[in-house]
């Protein structure tokens, strides 16, 4: 059987697309670089002003807006006590903790009841946001100086649980955190500051997510920041640094932030209620909520801001096995596609300003399509090499340029992190990060590209979405 037709097709393919693919790769990495530059402007401003930011004054002020911290929990028995304790102990003048137990089959509720001496309450949960899961009970501590409410309900998913939490929340601001997360002691103070500074306009803020794997946790506090042991988790540290920290800070600086992590997002409660809460049917519910808020505010012609605050950290356990990571990335990309498709009319629509004209096109072109192009490259380049269509040294040089540029972008991110927040103090950890940055481009990126495509395909073929389970190791606190 002759391979000439395949060879000819490949030649044509490379002729037509080769330079465009390189241009695409150049653009995507350059856009990250631009975001890093914008982020460094954002960080510089933040750090120059932090000596007189008045955090201590805000911690004491009775006018600092109250915050309800919502913790949806499903089978989080291993981590729930550390998580709740860390939130209760946060430095903030007025906050309550609302844990929503989403029908856990483990001892999540029992551990809370026992530890905090909870008793059943007659407090109602009905509110403006419709919820699906049936209520089983509301629990409060006998010691009413502990600002804790535990809502026990039937299992109906994270979004529905958060919606119930919003209904129960009694403060003006609501922050959503994951039960497997640990917040820095001043996290609430810092992430709420934009609301205190501009209460009329700021509607949502988001903080940073960092990997807790490998960190030392004592008494619900991360006391020693360290790189994770597993290679998979280490590479995610690099990813999170580049995308979650620098990427979002860059978008926020450009006033075009469209994504706040569900693991650490703060909202004005009235805006959240007006928007209708989280969509329980959406896989990318955090992204979808922020997009809905953008649409609602823009359609209403209202001035508003969505802000990313780079300093307050939510430490969370990231997947440290490929199986769990794969499930997560499939879900994320599926969520990305569904939200982008659902809000496609905002894309390239000048009515939506930078959101419609810059952020959404970016996400379509670079976030959504990147894995497709990556996988095509992974298939056609080796094929081309095998069939002698590609000049080997040229191909190697081509690939090296592409991946070294990606590494360069990560090095820029590392430098900005070192100048600004420098959370990883040990030299060994800096070395790990650099090695992980290299390893990211050799297999990991390609693997995540395949997973992301699988998630996209699952959505296109209307396969039922499954969250899967994340096996928690716990924080192992003393």
């Amino acid at each position, binding site marked *: 059987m002759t391979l000439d037709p395949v060879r000819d097709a490949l030649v044509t393919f490379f002729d037509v697309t080769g330079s465009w693919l390189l241009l695409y790769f150049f653009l995507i990495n350059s856009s990250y670089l631009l975001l890093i530059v914008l982020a460094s402007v954002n960080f510089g401003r933040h750090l120059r002003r932090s000596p007189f930011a008045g955090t201590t004054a805000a911690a004491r002020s009775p006018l600092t807006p109250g915050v309800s911290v919502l913790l949806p929990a499903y089978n989080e028995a291993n981590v729930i006590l550390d998580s709740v304790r860390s939130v209760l102990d946060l430095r903030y003048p007025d906050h309550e903790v609302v844990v929503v137990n989403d029908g856990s089959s483990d001892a999540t509720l029992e551990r809370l009841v026992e530890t905090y001496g909870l008793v059943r309450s007659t407090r109602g949960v*009905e509110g403006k946001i419709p919820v699906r899961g049936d209520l089983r009970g509301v629990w409060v501590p006998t010691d009413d100086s502990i600002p804790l409410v535990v809502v026990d309900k039937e299992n109906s998913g994270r979004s529905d649980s958060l919606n119930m939490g919003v209904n129960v929340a009694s403060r003006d601001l609501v922050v959503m955190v994951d039960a497997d997360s640990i917040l820095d002691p001043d996290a609430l103070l810092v992430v709420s500051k934009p609301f205190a500074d501009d209460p009329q306009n700021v509607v949502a803020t988001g903080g940073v997510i960092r990997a807790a794997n490998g960190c030392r946790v004592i008494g619900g506090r991360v006391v020693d920041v360290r790189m994770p042991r597993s290679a998979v988790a280490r590479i995610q540290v690099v990813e999170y640094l580049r995308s979650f920290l620098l990427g979002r800070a860059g978008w926020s600086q450009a006033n075009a932030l469209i994504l706040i992590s569900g693991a650490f997002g703060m909202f004005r409660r009235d805006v959240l209620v007006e928007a209708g809460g989280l969509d329980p049917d959406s896989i990318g519910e955090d992204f979808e909520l922020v997009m809905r808020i953008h649409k609602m505010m823009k359609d209403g012609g209202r001035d508003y801001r969505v802000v990313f605050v780079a300093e307050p950290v939510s430490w969370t356990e990231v997947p440290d096995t490929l199986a769990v990571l794969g499930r997560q990335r499939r879900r994320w990309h599926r969520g990305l596609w569904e939200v982008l498709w659902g809000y496609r009319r905002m894309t390239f629509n000048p009515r939506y300003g930078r959101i419609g004209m810059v952020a959404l096109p970016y996400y379509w072109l670079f976030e959504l399509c990147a894995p497709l192009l990556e996988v095509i490259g992974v298939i056609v380049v080796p094929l081309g090499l095998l069939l002698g269509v590609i000049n080997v040294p040229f191909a190697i*040089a081509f690939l090296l340029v592409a991946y070294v540029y990606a590494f360069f972008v990560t090095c820029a991110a590392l430098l900005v992190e070192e100048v600004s927040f420098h959370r990883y103090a040990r030299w060994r950890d800096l070395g790990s990060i650099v090695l992980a940055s290299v390893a990211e481009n050799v297999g990991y990126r390609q693997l995540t590209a395949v997973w992301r495509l699988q998630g996209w395909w699952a959505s296109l073929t209307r396969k039922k979405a499954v969250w899967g389970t994340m096996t928690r190791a716990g924080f192992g606190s003393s």
Partner: protein
Amino acid sequence: MLVLSWTVLVWTLTVLCALCVALLLATVAVRVGRGVLARRREALVAQVRPLVLEVLTAEDDEVAPACEKVAAVPEPLWPTAERYVLAAFDSVRGEVRDALVQVLLDRGTLARAVAATTARSAVRRARAAEVVGLVGHVDGRRSIVRLLSDPSVEVRTVAARALGQLGDPHVAALLLGALRPGSDVPASIVGTALIGIGEADTTALEPALEGALADRDEIVRLTAVAVAAELLVLPTARYVGERVLHDPSPAVRVQAARALARLGGAWAVPTLASATAPTEDPGVRLAAARTLLDMGTPTALDHLAPLRDDLDPDLRRLALEAGPTLTTEGAGP
């Protein structure tokens, strides 16, 4: 279409590799530099820390001798000692604080800070305002008042906070003036500053608050309501009550309804009940209902009874929380 030559690729790769190495070296240099600075700073702090701690833990007649040791710190060490003392001011009160303030005054801290309030850099002016506020001496007042009109919003914000720390009630009207449209000084900063002043002398604040409650600017009224409630300025209670039903701004009406939880009494119940009327803004209705619930008196709770069948689920929930104490007697606004 792009035309790539081998040469271009090799040069690009070489430049990229060089840039990567440069960035990594820069990262290492930043870390090393920070480590060196930190060790140097710690060495300096180690020399002044015991002296300052001795002041902070001194008993009555030990304060003066301990302060003398701090005052005698040699010039090269003084910036470190000054920073350490200022950092401790958040947790220091009374005679010890007064003694340390005198040390700072004698060593020229306030004079230097006042001079720095005219610096070209906004960051320097803001830091100077912060220091003046921390020192809390009346001699710094004029410079801080001037900074309320500074071109930089950060400087204006720090100046507002510093005025609160200075504690002079005569600046209350100036502080409220810092909330004018276009100023962008956060209302929470001004409010907190007023609360700080009012904690020392609430009576002196009353005229300014009464005027602010009738101000044409929404943010000023909002702040005045919040401050009046926090300081329990009872003479303003009736004015606040009027805001619940008659203020043109829903945000002010909400704040006023909440404020009545602290300022109100039996007289406020009919006002709050009226504010739960179906024609009122939903946020105002909710705030009024919550205040009635928090008041907890039978009369207050009775006015929640009609809300059990309200279309608003938040109000139904609050009415249910009032529980079996609700009766049908006296129900209705």
